[in-house]
């Protein structure tokens, strides 16, 4: 032990507490329990493996619709799964509800809370426990490993059906092809294509003027001002000297602006398509699941703008293992939310409805998706004005104080940098294109920011916009009133501290 003179009392206190903290006997008992659980698990692994073999055999013989993934027929529980509770009915797999034990679930999840509170575990994840199907997440496997087979729980899963995904298209895009196109239009690609004319120091070289001419001739995004720019450029060449140089600079600036406009319009259009496509796909995947399965307590949010196919059901550990082994369209993620309480407007997310039900007195930090905007404001908002006016919904006044501008976030960012002197990052802050560029230049200039890899450029579009960057706090009454408004598409609950910036 070091520094004992300074921390003598601390060491004494910890030692005293450690002496009270149980004995080796408790560890032995825990080990014994683990062995018993592992024994049970091995038994089930055997059963599942046998069931999977039989199912494959059945599928091979032209069987069932459970194997819709492979275009083959329904689940027939085989001898290995003789005590399986899952049955088949009219070509649909029926998973019965189990009510013998209390259901495990959560009423609010805070996926970002670890990160936000500085408790992200940098250690590599522990090795995956063996004997579980691959389409169960590591973290759920660790939880299942501690449970009895008949333990019911709310389980969150994603249902991916390849056929459904390929058949759901919009303007010729599937979600996959759309994401590919979007990924090609990220800022890095933009930087690559942003050619020499950005290097204004070289503009007095004839080569650069030639490059400018070539840009004008070839770039489709330049159509709208091509004639005007060509004329200016010819004039710049003719003038030569400082005057020609200044004029060429003007051409460059206009070309940059034209590029920005074209790129952003493309991005917004793709963003619109993405939003609509994800909404459609979410519903289509849900319908496919309902076609093939009857799952107890199945719920699915109608507004999964980011993760379509994500749903929740009440299943036992045994049922989860059986489904995962039999159908790889399921990917089981984690313990999920309890069932949505009745009586809340559709615009309120499941999580928020549960929060309002369980803790009605708490003020909720929410993100609101709305179309309640004034005039042409969306375009301006995307260019960086977070204080732009929002139509006031009945009974609720949004002021610029409630809608925290991103500058405030920026302020937090800088404050934490000074306090800690370490690498910091912006946690999932939605930053739009114009501001992103400004941030980048600030970072480079100040040289005090090590990483901004977690930032992403928002694809916000005219279909929906978020208010206040997720920083609006409202009471239960305000939220219930707001959810009745036609302009409000969706209100989702944010974890405490969301949007705040922390060091790590």
């Amino acid at each position: 032990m070091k520094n004992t003179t300074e921390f003598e009392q601390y060491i004494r206190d910890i030692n005293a507490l450690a002496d009270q903290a149980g004995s080796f006997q408790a560890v032995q008992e825990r080990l014994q329990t683990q062995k018993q659980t592992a024994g049970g698990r091995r038994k089930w692994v055997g059963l599942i493996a046998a069931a999977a073999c039989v199912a494959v055999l059945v599928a091979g013989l032209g069987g069932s619709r459970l194997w819709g993934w492979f275009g083959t027929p329904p689940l027939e529980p085989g001898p290995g799964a003789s005590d399986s509770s899952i049955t088949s009915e009219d070509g649909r797999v029926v998973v019965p509800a189990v009510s013998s034990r209390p259901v495990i679930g959560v009423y609010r999840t805070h996926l970002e809370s670890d990160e936000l509170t500085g408790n992200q575990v940098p250690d590599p994840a522990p090795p995956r426990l063996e004997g579980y199907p691959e389409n169960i997440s590591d973290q759920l496997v660790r939880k299942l490993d501690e449970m009895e087979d008949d333990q019911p729980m709310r389980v969150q899963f994603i249902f991916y059906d390849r056929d459904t995904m390929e058949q759901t298209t919009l303007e010729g895009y599937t979600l996959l092809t759309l994401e590919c196109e979007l990924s090609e239009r990220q800022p890095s690609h933009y930087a690559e294509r942003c050619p020499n004319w950005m290097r204004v120091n070289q503009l007095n070289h004839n080569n650069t003027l030639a490059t400018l001419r070539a840009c004008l001739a070839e770039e489709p995004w330049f159509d709208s001002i091509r004639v005007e720019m060509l004329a200016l450029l010819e004039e710049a060449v003719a003038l030569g000297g400082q005057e020609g140089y200044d004029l060429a600079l003007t051409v460059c600036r206009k070309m940059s602006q034209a590029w920005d406009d074209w790129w952003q319009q493309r991005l917004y259009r793709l963003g619109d398509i993405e939003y609509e496509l994800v909404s459609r796909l979410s519903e289509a995947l849900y319908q496919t699941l309902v076609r093939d399965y009857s799952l107890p307590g199945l719920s699915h949010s109608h507004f999964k703008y980011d993760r379509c196919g994500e749903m929740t059901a009440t299943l036992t550990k045994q049922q989860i293992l059986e489904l995962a082994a039999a159908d790889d369209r399921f990917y089981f993620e984690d313990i999920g939310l309890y069932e949505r309480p009745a009586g809340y407007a559709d615009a309120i997310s499941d999580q928020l409805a549960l929060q309002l039900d369980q803790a009605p007195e708490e003020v909720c930090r929410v993100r609101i998706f709305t179309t309640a905007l004034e005039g042409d404001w969306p375009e301006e908002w995307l260019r960086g004005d977070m204080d732009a006016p929002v139509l006031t919904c009945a009974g609720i006044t949004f002021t610029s104080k409630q809608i925290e501008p991103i500058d405030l976030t920026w302020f937090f960012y800088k404050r934490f940098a000074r306090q800690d002197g370490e690498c910091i990052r912006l946690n999932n802050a939605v930053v739009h294109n114009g501001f992103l560029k400004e941030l980048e230049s600030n970072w480079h200039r100040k040289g005090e920011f090590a990483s901004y890899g977690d930032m992403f450029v928002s694809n916000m579009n005219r279909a929906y916009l978020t208010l206040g960057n997720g920083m609006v706090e409202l009471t239960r009454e305000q939220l219930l009133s707001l959810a009745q408004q036609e302009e409000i598409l969706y209100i989702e609950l944010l974890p405490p501290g969301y949007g705040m910036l922390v060091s790590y």
Partner: protein
Amino acid sequence: MMDATLEDSIRWCSTDISALEAVYTELRRDVFALAYSLLRDFAMAEDAMQETFARLPRAARKFHSATGGKAFVLAIARHVSFEYCRSRAKAYPSSFLKANSAETDMAEETYLGQLLGACTREQAEVISLHVFSGMTFEEISRLTHTPASTLKSRFAQAKAVLRPLLEKEAQT
């Protein structure tokens, strides 16, 4: 027990319960100190300590002596503690956030309660590993994947925050 013996015990503990007990006897205080500094709750720290040693036999198969016996066990303890942090954050977000900022289940008037109350979780972790477990900053750096300079800075910050407490303690 010398380090070599500790490492042998870790290696054997997957098949020999007495080896596990030897590791437990050697490191239980260090494991508890680390868990308590991260969790700030006696019952949870006790639970995390037991869980750490219960996981050790299985984890020990991957033990390499280059890691160092104490660092290996404390890495498991740290991981278990963070798992508990996460589960508590999901179950009781408000109380978790409070605990993360300052609050502890220790009475505020106790020295330990004041010490943990004044430190961030990261600072308390460094104090536990450096002061209680006697690890160097380089060893802690490998364990926590944090630069040693950062750890030194955290330790210095913690000492600055705790100076009034330490002085008061020195006088009494």
